[in-house]
């Protein structure tokens, strides 16, 4: 399997996959086309969300349990701006992302100096407070009445209503996010993040400003979550506080863990497998069992951490291992057990 995956040139594989996806709406799938498209749109939305969340636990090694809070902030920002001011979708998505980033900084700046456990629980508390606000501030969000009547996005005057149009829209969003995240990963910031994840003290010794980089990561992660929320609001056309429950955060975390923490391809594959899988389970399992599907998420998290903490994909593990070795060399050097010429600084692990 590993050899096989190595043989396929990555560029061609990506291009092939992209073409398959792009022609999908035009394949003769009969009555189920729309349903399949909708499920895949959902899967890709979760890819966007998972890529966003991945930045914090995957790149920085911090557990963020409040991601759904930013997702919800994005959805309500978009929903309210569309309903009250009729602002175009193309302006709303960046605005929602900005709002998400703002809250990310507000929450991140004071909390990111905490140890991992406290950070996790504070983010959880934050997302619960966000949902509570959505539920209770009727003047703003209509609370549990939900926010109906969100207008669909339009492009050059054409209103997007059909399933395949949303399908392409989410592909566009996904490509933008993948581009941003992969550029970030390979940039100076990205390397600093990996350094922080592997060894905070070593990273600090290399002159990395921990708080600054962590807050940046948190803000970017939050803004991607909010952008996903904005798409969700305009796609569902109705949002409700119940849609942003804590379990969504865990589901997204589960997708990342399955694909491999910190891996972009793995994260996307995790969503591509899991989201349709649950749609299949819905039809195969009796409803009582299907209701308890989060049991599988929970079990997945536990088993993966125990047996394959680097995710299911073999070739990603490889890359991960290299990064880890580099970081280990660095910390050994700092601890004085390795000579300077053997240590490779964090910033050159890629080249």
């Amino acid at each position, binding site marked *: 399997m590993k050899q096989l995956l190595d043989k396929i040139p990555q560029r061609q594989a990506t291009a092939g996959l992209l073409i398959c996806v792009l022609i999908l709406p035009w394949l003769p*799938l*009969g*009555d*189920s086309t*729309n*349903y*399949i498209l*909708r499920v895949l749109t959902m899967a890709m939305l979760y890819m966007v969300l998972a890529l966003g969340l991945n930045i914090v636990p995957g790149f920085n090694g911090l557990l963020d349990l409040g991601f759904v809070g930013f997702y919800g902030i994005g959805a309500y920002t978009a929903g309210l701006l569309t309903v009250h001011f009729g602002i175009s979708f193309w302006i709303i998505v960046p605005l929602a992302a900005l709002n998400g980033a703002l809250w990310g900084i507000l929450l991140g700046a004071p909390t990111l100096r905490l140890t991992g456990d406290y950070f996790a629980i504070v983010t959880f508390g934050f997302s619960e407070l966000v949902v509570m606000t959505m*539920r*209770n501030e*009727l003047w703003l969000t209509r*609370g*549990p*009445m*939900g926010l*109906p*009547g969100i207008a669909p996005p339009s492009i050059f005057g054409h209103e997007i*209503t059909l399933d395949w149009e949303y399908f392409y829209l989410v592909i566009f969003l996904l490509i933008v996010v993948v581009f941003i995240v992969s550029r970030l990963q390979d940039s100076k910031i990205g390397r600093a993040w990996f350094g922080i994840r592997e060894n905070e003290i070593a990273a600090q010794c290399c002159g990395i400003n921990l708080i600054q980089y962590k807050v940046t990561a948190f803000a970017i992660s939050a803004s991607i979550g909010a952008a996903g929320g904005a798409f969700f609001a305009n796609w*569902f*056309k*109705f949002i*409700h506080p*119940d*849609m942003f429950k804590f379990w969504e955060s865990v589901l997204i975390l589960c997708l990342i863990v399955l694909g491999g923490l910190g891996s972009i391809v793995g994260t996307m594959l995790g969503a591509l497998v899991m989201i*349709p899988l649950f*749609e*299949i389970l*819905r*039809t*195969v399992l009796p*409803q*009582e069992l*299907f*209701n308890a599907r989060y049991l599988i998420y929970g079990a997945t998290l536990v088993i993966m951490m125990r047996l394959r903490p680097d995710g299911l994909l073999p070739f990603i593990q490889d890359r991960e291992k290299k990064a880890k070795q580099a970081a280990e060399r660095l910390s050994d050097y700092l601890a004085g057990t390795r000579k300077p010429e053997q240590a490779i600084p964090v910033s050159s692990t890629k080249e």
Partner: protein
Amino acid sequence: MKKLLILLVSIFFLTGSAWAKTIKIGVAGPFTGPLASFGEQLKIGATMKAAEVNAAGGINGNKVEPVFMDELCDPKEAATVGTKLANDKNISIVIGHLCSSSTLAALPIYRSAKLPAISPTSTNVSIGKMSPYYFRNVYRDDFQGLFLAQYIKKVKNFKKVAIFYEVNDYSMGLMSAFMKEALKLKINILGTEAYTNETTDFKPQLTKFKMMRPDAIFVPGYHPQALLIASQAASLGIKAKMFGADGLDNPTMLDNPDTDGLFVTTPFLVESAGPAAKSFIAKHRKDRGEDPGWMTANTYDAFGMAVQAIKAVGENRVKIRDYLAGINSKENGYDGVTGLTYFDGNGDCLKSAYVKEIKDGKWISAQQMQ
């Protein structure tokens, strides 16, 4: 690859079996989860009507079959389930959803798929105006709230009322309608307190009510919490009466002696039902050993209207919608077990409300308002 194949095949089979000979009617509601006992009533109503229609020869010779879709009263689930129903070409009408928030989530999907739907239970005010494809054979929250306010003034003569509401669309819609009318009738609202569907400790709020000394506490919520509220109120020594709306009308309310004296509004009352309902009630009693609940009766009628529409115009979604929209006056109204049903321009309808109360561990008809 194999997985993908299984996925495609299973989706194909589940959504597209074009060779079916039965006529399918979608029924969506919470058949499992915390509100499963409501969903059960939906299920009973639809199954009873379908069995009856089939025994009488079906729809123009074809058998009718309800397709139950579970959405747990979760708006996100409702949207997924709604998509499935909308894409199934064999489904030409949906009965549901049960909770208003689910109905609102599925509504845009049905509207763009031009799929008509009748909700037997969603009472939220905003539903009717939002889609020409949505109908309901149940009154709206504003009517129910107004009715309750008048009832406690005229029949019970309560002067001071405290309101204990759940943070959800149904409960808050009812509360605001009740308060509006109460203000007009000069009923003194002593205070309002909130709880959520995950609350189990109601004592701080109830303690507050206790000191206000109300004549009655209005609980416009659902039965699982109302049951706990009743027993915790009793343990605090609160003597005020409790009353609620149709969300409390459930047999589980009888599990606990503390609910004695509680009264609720309901759209359907066995004692006040017309002659058309006699055989329905008798059959329900025979099959299940108890009287039918209001959701059962409403679903039974909604299903009946769907069958009548298909009988008249066939399985065309738009034609069914037009047919239903045409049921707009007393003369051509649908005469079901819950009385005469006809829709206004928004697809809403006017139904009468009744009051029933718990006495000695049984639901009985209370004194009605003239």
